[in-house]
């Protein structure tokens, strides 16, 4: 997950010279340079995930695919959706959605995964 953050370190808080008075909310304006880097990064990652899928890595295949997807999604959320620069409340909202999604999957699987227990 740290890849995107490291990559853009130092550019994240880069206020352009023309951003002084332009809008009515306290939003941070993300420079286009970051968008370009993020967009390119996402495309590269897409290529990477397709590439990774062509190697037989056993159980690691889906893990890598999902890991890359998570990295991509996190990048989109942080930069395209400005969560990196948003209030705690927004971060909390995103987190709670993620949390409940994991609850839904985790607790449902707690049934499916343990149905065979105790049968031998």
């Amino acid at each position, binding site marked *: 997950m740290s890849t995107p953050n490291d990559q853009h370190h130092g550019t994240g808080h880069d206020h352009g010279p*023309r*951003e002084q008075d*332009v*809008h*009515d*909310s*306290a*939003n941070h*304006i*993300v*420079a*286009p340079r970051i*968008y*370009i880097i*993020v*967009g390119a990064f*996402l*495309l590269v990652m*897409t*290529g990477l*995930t*397709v590439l990774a*899928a*062509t*190697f*037989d890595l056993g159980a690691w*295949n*889906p893990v890598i*695919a*999902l890991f*890359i*997807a998570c990295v*991509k*999604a996190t990048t*989109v*959320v942080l*930069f*395209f*959706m400005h969560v990196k620069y948003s209030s705690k*409340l*927004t971060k909390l*909202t*995103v987190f*709670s*959605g*993620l949390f*409940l*999604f994991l609850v*839904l*999957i985790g607790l*449902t*699987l707690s049934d*499916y995964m343990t149905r065979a227990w105790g049968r031998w």
Partner: protein
Amino acid sequence: MEQQVDATTFAMWLFLLTEIMFFGGLFCSYLIFRNWYYPAFVEASHQLNLFWGTLNTGVLITSSFTMAMGVWCSEMRKKSGLVLCLVLTFVLGLVFLGIKYIEYSEKWEKHHVPGFHYSMKSFTDPASDKEVHDKYPDDKALMPDMARHTELYFSLYFAMTGMHALHMIIGISILGFMIFRARAGAYTTGHITFVENFGLYWHFVDIIWIFLFPLLYLISRHA
């Protein structure tokens, strides 16, 4: 006024929260059936066209990029830039749907669409339909019970990508409306909330696809 702006963006995030849970149910189903019927899922997934899928991912990511640029243009009050970005996003969205149409119609042709049009025979004996077989000669025959479970894969495939496509269609319609308003200079006077919130929606739809792509297309592609 600022409170109002803040409020709608927050409301948009909450709405996206409901969207996460909406797709969450589908992802949950997918996970369970993939575990149960892994071999069938592998075979069915290989019926998808990796080229189209990858291209579509690229298209959607690019559209997300143009959308983000659109928000930036709106923030910087660049009217023509905004219109350009929105039009690009609009076009890329349509390209995505077009490619999706190509993929869907291939599935229709091969009788892989679940339900009344589905034919198990297309999996157990792909050579039986000569016309289709000539077009896709690489399809191999499956065991009937495995073929039966491919229908489940395609049920999920169509449910998930269909729901995603529905979100795309809604998004594109709103985009069309926004292009008109942007040309009239609506979002470049400092009132960027609408563009910003739509951007959030569009990126969310992109994120869903970022997960759908590896889950649906990239199952055991090395085989």
